């Protein structure tokens, strides 16, 4: 018989801080301040289907895998195969753990009909089996699930109770950290009053249906010698096992990035100070049906993939293929991203599970896929209506979680058509958001126009104008604000105004052209006139010069004649006269 070294002795119970055995269950260790009391039994009670076995099994498996504390699982209801199957769904290979000697499983099965009772007996057989299992793998942890089954198998309850009391004392003496599960009773915590024997730590699991949606809850009823969270905490059995969601455990200590990421809509980036949203911020896009919320979300996803980042899209209204088809109709081809593995679309009906269950599903996906961008379309579908009370803390946890992961998140939210309700229904969650974009339909002059405005955006300048939001076959964009006088024009009014102004501009342009041409013609005419006058002037000048020459020559002729006459008669030459006189005389 394999008998390895004895398990550790009982932990000193008088120690100032109670030694604890971590459960490794997300959230539970936070509530209990480190885990279950080491070396003591803990009672885990709850109604059928509240997850007792799962919590107990995880406690054991985590102990074996993470804390090097082998464990014994003694079950009274499920068979080993069933447990192995259940754990396999969480990715735990029980057979392997058994082969490695990390977990020992003993299935205790009592068939009432097979058993006759005569005279005295005790449950030494159970002790021996348990002791043998503990010794065989040097176990530090023990789970008894559900020991109350013995009450239906053994008729003599007086003996049974005495033996159970002895069993719990024996477990303490062995120094194993034990989890004993018990069925929830009508008036007491457990049907057979196990809490009487296990007094150190009692955890109550609850499975409640509210509005046809079930939520599991966990409460630490009692934890002797240590402080613990006393609230009811929602918990879930997700793909990776149990997660308890302590509302208060998350602090506001995430790092704020000053890096900006594009929303995928140029016009919107411009409105947000020209460069988009902060990385790691969360944005709410709210609007009535048909205002284009999903398109904004898809653009955001598209932009992220374009940058080569991973994007996760939670679609709660459409199937993945429907999303892809609908978005390709506005020119956003998301299929290549999906094929490349950059985009993951998770489509489901959120009301299928409780809100918490969904959150954990989302956590799991975010943890596995490690996206830089998450879009939830829409959050208003995460819960049945009029349950904002629950939605807000849940969203708070989600947003905080995403922020701590540095994930930029965009949530769309459906609001009713009534303008007054828009603010009302969103007050609950909008305060959690860094940026709030409101899409609305403006109905005027027999048509609807989509508009977009940025209601708030923390830490960045943003436009306060209402922009027109258009979806074309090449994506979503915002039309530059069209101001006409003191009005922002949208839709047909904008188009007709644009046309009118274009027509007026054209007219003006032609008028200008005409006037310039006229001016040129005029200038040409004047030039011609100038040329003609110049010619006239030249002609005149020529005539004058000719006359002058002629007269000069005549005058020369006269004077030479008179000189020769005087020579011949020897007459002194006449006193020179004004030149004009002889000329005038000559001319006559």
């Amino acid at each position, binding site marked *: 018989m394999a008998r390895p070294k004895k398990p550790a002795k009982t932990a000193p119970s008088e120690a100032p801080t109670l030694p604890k055995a971590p459960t490794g269950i997300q959230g539970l260790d936070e509530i209990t301040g480190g885990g279950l009391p080491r070396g003591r039994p803990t009672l885990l009670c709850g109604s059928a289907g509240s997850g007792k076995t799962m919590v107990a099994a995880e406690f054991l498996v985590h102990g074996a895998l993470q804390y090097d504390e082998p464990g014994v699982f003694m079950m009274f209801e499920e068979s080993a195969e069933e447990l192995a199957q259940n754990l396999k769904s969480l990715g735990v290979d029980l057979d392997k753990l058994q082969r490695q000697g990390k977990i020992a499983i003993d299935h205790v099965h009592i068939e009432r009909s097979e058993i006759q009772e*005569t005279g005295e007996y005790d449950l030494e057989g*159970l002790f*021996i089996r348990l002791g*043998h299992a503990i010794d065989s793998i040097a176990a530090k942890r023990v789970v008894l699930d559900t020991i109350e089954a*013995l009450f239906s198998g053994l008729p003599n309850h007086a003996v049974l109770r005495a033996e159970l009391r002895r069993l719990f004392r024996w477990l303490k003496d062995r120094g194993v950290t034990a989890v004993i599960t018990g069925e929830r009773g009508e008036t007491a915590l457990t049907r057979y009053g196990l809490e009487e024997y296990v007094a150190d730590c009692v955890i109550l699991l609850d499975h409640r249906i509210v509005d046809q949606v079930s939520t599991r809850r966990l409460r630490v009823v009692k934890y002797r010698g240590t402080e613990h969270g006393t609230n009811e905490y929602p918990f879930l059995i997700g793909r990776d096992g149990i997660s308890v969601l302590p509302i208060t455990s998350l602090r506001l200590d995430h790092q704020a990035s000053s890096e900006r990421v594009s929303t995928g809509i140029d016009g919107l980036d411009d409105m947000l100070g020209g460069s988009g949203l902060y990385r790691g911020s969360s944005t709410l896009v709210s609007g009535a049906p048909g205002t284009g919320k999903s398109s904004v979300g898809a653009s955001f996803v598209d932009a992220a993939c374009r940058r080569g980042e991973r994007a996760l899209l939670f679609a709660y209204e459409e199937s993945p293929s429907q999303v892809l088809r609908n978005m390709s109709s506005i020119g956003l081809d998301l299929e290549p991203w999906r094929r490349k593995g950059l985009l993951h679309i998770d489509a489901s009906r959120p009301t299928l599970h409780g809100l918490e269950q969904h959150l954990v599903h989302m956590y799991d996906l975010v943890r596995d896929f490690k996206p830089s961008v998450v879009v939830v379309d829409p959050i208003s579908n995460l819960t049945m209506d009029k349950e904002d009370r629950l939605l807000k803390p849940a969203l708070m946890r989600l947003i905080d979680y995403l922020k701590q992961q540095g994930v930029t998140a965009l949530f769309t939210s459906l609001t009713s058509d009534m303008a007054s309700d828009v603010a009302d229904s969103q007050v609950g969650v909008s305060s959690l958001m860094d940026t709030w974009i409101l899409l609305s339909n403006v109905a005027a002059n027999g048509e609807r126009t989509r508009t977009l405005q940025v209601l708030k955006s923390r830490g960045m300048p943003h436009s306060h104008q209402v922009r027109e939001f258009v979806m074309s076959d090449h994506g979503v964009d915002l039309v530059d604000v069209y101001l006409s006088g003191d009005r922002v024009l949208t839709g047909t009014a904008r188009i007709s105004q644009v046309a009118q102004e274009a027509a007026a501009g054209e007219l003006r342009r032609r008028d200008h052209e005409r006037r310039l041409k006229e001016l040129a013609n005029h200038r040409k005419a004047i030039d011609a006139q100038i040329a003609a006058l110049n010619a006239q002037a030249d002609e005149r000048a020529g005539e004058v010069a000719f006359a002058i020459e002629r007269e000069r020559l005549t005058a020369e002729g006269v004077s030479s004649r008179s000189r020769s006459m005087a020579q011949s008669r020897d007459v002194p030459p006449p006193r020179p006269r004004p030149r004009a006189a002889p000329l005038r005389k000559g001319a006559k």
Partner: protein
Amino acid sequence: MSAHKSPSKARAGAAGLAEKALHEEQPEVAEWQLRLYIAGQTAKSMAAFENLKRVCETHLAGRYSIEVVDLLVNPRLAAGDQILAVPTLVRKFPEPIRKIIGDLSNEERVLVGLDVRPRR
């Protein structure tokens, strides 16, 4: 046999008890195959064995075999027959398996438990 009836737990005697049982009953192909699980030589164990022998000799003389299993010596065997209570008598054959827990002090109930028709 009566020498072992002392209430103190005499572990050393367990093996001897089992051997004795096997030798006495020559189990060729016994019609009734019984197995008695005990945990050490406690008063209850001894009483159970005594009571069992008496019932068998009275009603099943020559047609039975008794195997005594001490779980302190062989703790492994407890899981096989789903033993919790000690002492437990298991009727291995004829099938179906039946179990009787306790010190077998009530003969009538033992007979009912083993489904043996009392011999008049």
